[in-house]
């Protein structure tokens, strides 16, 4: 267990982070008044965020080992342990999750009118399980929390969703479940191929699996994660789910749940099956390009704001997978940063859409045309977040995209050049949306009486806006924590890279 740095900071801080929202959720059932339930949930999520902050300051960026680790026996007869720990890849994801949850509570304040208690409980439940996903170092526990994120999200969409909520929630559930089942098979296969048998994720890395075995495991993992990301062509559940989900659901879905897919690639595919990762990398790169272009073109054609942002996510996540599979430091660090950026920016954009929907009860661009005149504060926020989404220089996404493309140019110029139209498309669909909302055309629908943002909404958006510019101009505090882990990960992969057989040699004996 030398890959763990045991936690010496308080009693099991990672466990506490998971238990806080869980316990807070159960307390909800003893609070009768709705208003108090909201304040309680807000308090719990803020407390969780505050407790998570010391993770950053106590984090040792010089090592790739898993820190704040906890290791307890769970089901010894099956070799199942309760192992938690975070490294430079998961730290920022944990922090982003805890930061976003209070905002999700705030944005649901007036939006959710029915079954408030259940809604808030599900929010807290999903927070606990998402944190578990990013902290788990034992595959059984990982699988449990991975699946545990599905059910609250299924219910969030299915109960508080829009007109086609049942269709969307079932589609979401079936797609991701299909992926998860593949992953379960891969996990069990891995268990029996390790010696001694283990479910410990770090122990599974660096084992000498055969090429063919790696390929199959990779394919199973790939399906699970590619659906989650979602990579083209596994993305069709995403727009449906986003459009129907309530605002908080969309934010969680876009900002955190999608990242579980790319996190999976980084945490499992690359270190556990490095040879297969290298073999399949060209295909994943081209799939990323396809996603970038497809997401961009489709977003350009949307008239529903939520759909537009949902398809833009397909494009943006394409950039993330592009950065991951070029296998160099700048690309991979850019990809991890872009995961955070996408969480911040797209989360904020979904919040913005929710705010306008609460007022005009429509997400159609032409029905919301010209609101800029009546909601100047709102469109100011929207402008900055849209600029961030199109990777305007000086915003967070620019740094991420810049690093990813630099990584791609350093690897294969052709692939990088193919991703450039995606950047143009991002500008096109975002500016188109902005133009429609702020200006509209010569005969806009009447918006007289539309109120601008209130204090609660401004408080919801401000932290995200600060992060947009903080990462845009000073990304070093965010990049510094990932250097060691990324270097270690690349070592695991690139050690293999030179000796890896080409795909043709593997499948054609």
């Amino acid at each position, binding site marked *: 267990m030398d890959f763990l740095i045991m936690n010496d900071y308080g009693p099991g801080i990672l466990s506490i982070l998971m238990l806080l929202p869980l316990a807070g959720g159960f307390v909800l059932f003893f609070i009768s008044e709705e208003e108090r339930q909201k304040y309680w949930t807000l308090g719990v999520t803020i407390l969780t965020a505050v407790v998570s902050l010391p993770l950053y300051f106590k984090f040792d960026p010089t090592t790739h080992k898993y820190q704040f680790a906890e290791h307890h026996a769970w089901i010894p007869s099956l070799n199942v342990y309760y192992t938690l720990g975070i490294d430079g890849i998961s730290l920022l994801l944990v922090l982003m999750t805890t930061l976003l949850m209070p905002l999700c509570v705030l944005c649901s304040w007036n939006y959710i009118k029915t079954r408030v208690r259940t809604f808030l409980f599900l929010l807290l439940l999903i927070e606990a399980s998402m944190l578990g996903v990013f902290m788990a170092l034992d595959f059984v526990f990982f699988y449990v929390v991975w699946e545990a994120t599905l059910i609250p999200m299924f219910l969030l969409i299915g109960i508080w969703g829009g007109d086609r909520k049942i269709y969307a929630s079932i589609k979401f559930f079936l797609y991701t479940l299909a992926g998860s089942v593949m992953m379960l098979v891969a996990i069990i296969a891995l268990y029996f191929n390790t010696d001694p048998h283990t479910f410990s994720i770090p122990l599974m890395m660096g084992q000498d699996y055969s090429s063919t075995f790696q390929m199959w495991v990779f394919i199973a993992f790939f399906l699970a994660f590619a659906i989650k990301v979602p990579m083209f062509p596994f993305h069709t559940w995403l727009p449906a789910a986003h459009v129907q989900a309530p605002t908080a659901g969309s934010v969680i879905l876009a900002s955190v749940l999608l990242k579980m897919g790319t996190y999976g690639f980084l945490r499992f595919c690359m270190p556990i099956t490095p040879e297969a990762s290298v073999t399949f990398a060209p295909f994943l790169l081209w799939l990323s390009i396809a996603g970038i272009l497809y997401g961009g073109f489709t977003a350009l054609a949307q008239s529903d704001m939520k759909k537009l942002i949902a398809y833009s996510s397909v494009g943006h996540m394409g950039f993330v997978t592009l950065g991951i599979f070029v296998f160099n430091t700048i690309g991979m660090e850019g990809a991890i940063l872009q995961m955070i950026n996408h969480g911040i920016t797209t989360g904020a954009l979904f919040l913005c859409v929710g705010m306008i929907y609460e007022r005009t009860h429509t997400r159609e661009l032409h029905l919301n045309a010209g609101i800029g005149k009546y909601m100047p504060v709102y469109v100011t926020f929207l402008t900055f977040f849209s600029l961030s989404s199109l990777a305007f220089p000086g915003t967070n996404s620019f740094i991420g995209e810049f690093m990813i493309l*630099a990584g791609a140019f350093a690897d294969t110029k052709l692939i990088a050049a193919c991703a*450039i139209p995606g950047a143009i498309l991002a*500008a096109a669909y975002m500016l188109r949306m902005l133009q429609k909302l702020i200006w509209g055309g010569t005969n806009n629908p009447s918006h007289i009486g539309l109120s601008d943002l209130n204090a609660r909404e401004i408080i919801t958006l401000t932290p995200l806006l600060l992060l947009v510019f903080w990462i845009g101009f000073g990304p070093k505090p965010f990049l510094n924590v990932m250097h060691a882990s990324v270097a270690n990960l690349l070592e695991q992969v690139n050690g293999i890279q030179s000796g890896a057989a080409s795909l043709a040699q593997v499948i054609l004996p």
Partner: protein
Amino acid sequence: MEVIISSKPLIAMLCALTGAVLVSLSGRNPNIRESWSVAAAACMFAVIGSMVPEVMVGNVFKYQVFDILPGLSLTFRSDAFSMIFAFVASFLWIVTAFYSMGYMRSLEEHAQTRFNTCFALSLFGAIGVAFADNLFTLYLFYEVVSICTYPLVAHHQDEEGYSGARKYIVYLTTTAKGLLLPAMILIYVLTGSLDFADNIHTGIFPADVSSGLVIILFICCIIGFAKNGIMPVHNWLPGAMVAPTPVSALLHAVAVVKVGVFSTTRVMLYVFGTDQMGALGLGTATLYLASFTIIMASIIALTKDNLKARLAYSTVSQLSYIILGVAMLTPSGIDGGLVHIANHAFSKITLFFCAGAIYVATHKKNISEMSGLGKTMPWTFTAFGIASLSMIGAPPVAGFVTKWKLLVGAMEMPAHSIAILLVLLSSTLLNAAYFAPVTYKAFLGKRPEGEPYEGIKEAPLSMVIPLMIAAVISVIIGIWPDFIMTFVNLVSK
């Protein structure tokens, strides 16, 4: 050369930014709002002016604001090259602030607060470009200018305004995202840094970079800075003429297009360097592209009856003089190109001011309807005549200095001299052919039938005085070009 670490370049920009915020907050009271504009412009000019003495002796101001990634930072520099643009732009902002007050109030335009806010923001971007110390900073403020000028171009919010503005933003963002962004990233990958060189000769590429790649990057940069109006990416410029005239004046004579040519020449000289451009034949290729633009745009200008459209095509043509001069890669050529940034600014802004004054006084946009107006609007048309002379390149107006330097530069070139001389001469004739008739007919022609003289008088003084000031300065820098030439010589030496 001495490097002075000072936040003055940043402060100059913050003047414009603060001005924009204050303007947007004081929309209720137009007088206070406009005085913020003027105050911001004056402060900015003062801060920039305070750097002039140091820069004139060859010193450079530098200030790093953010260190973002290794080799990538938000850094400002104020050297002789940036001063050519920054000094002129900040001065003309003051003049334009007065002029636009007169124009917008005379026509009772709507949304003046938004207009003035975006105006200040555009200047913020333009000065940011002037003071950029690396490609990232340059790109950032280049994009800021694109975004902040959109509301100005679409100001009238009618079908024409929206379609002009759409064309504007599509041209500018597509080229910036599609060509500049990859070029910038590739330069970063190849050199590990985006900082400009500190002289115009060496460039920043290490010797082992393949020349094919450098040529591709060069093309990306020349076309990518589409604000430079070089053909084939010039079409946004005539489209953007739907904007109110002060916008056309400041933005399309000073800020936007000058941001384009300034960026282009900055990158040509400080990223690629004259040595490499010469060795790869990039200078020659650019010469012919610019020559083509000069001649074609002049010919198109001949066919335009709308005064602002003719001025727009004249701008396309004149901007390419600047690129042409720099692409000659000879000291006099570079001098001639760079000094034209200032010369063209003063003269072209005079012409646009005049077009706006004519429109306010008579509501006429077409040249054919302006004959005979010289008698009732003598000041405006005199200024127009002076500025036309500058465009043509006749002494003693500013444009003459440019032409002189360019001709000398062309003769200094080891090859292609004759071709470029012919281009310069024929474009001079073309300039005369499309500018001279305007003034000539205004003073010597008769009013068209059914168009009376009565009731036409000069535009308000707040418009006429700024346009006269700009015209007089055009003459002054034609007779005493030393001030601007000091900066230009520091660059090319």
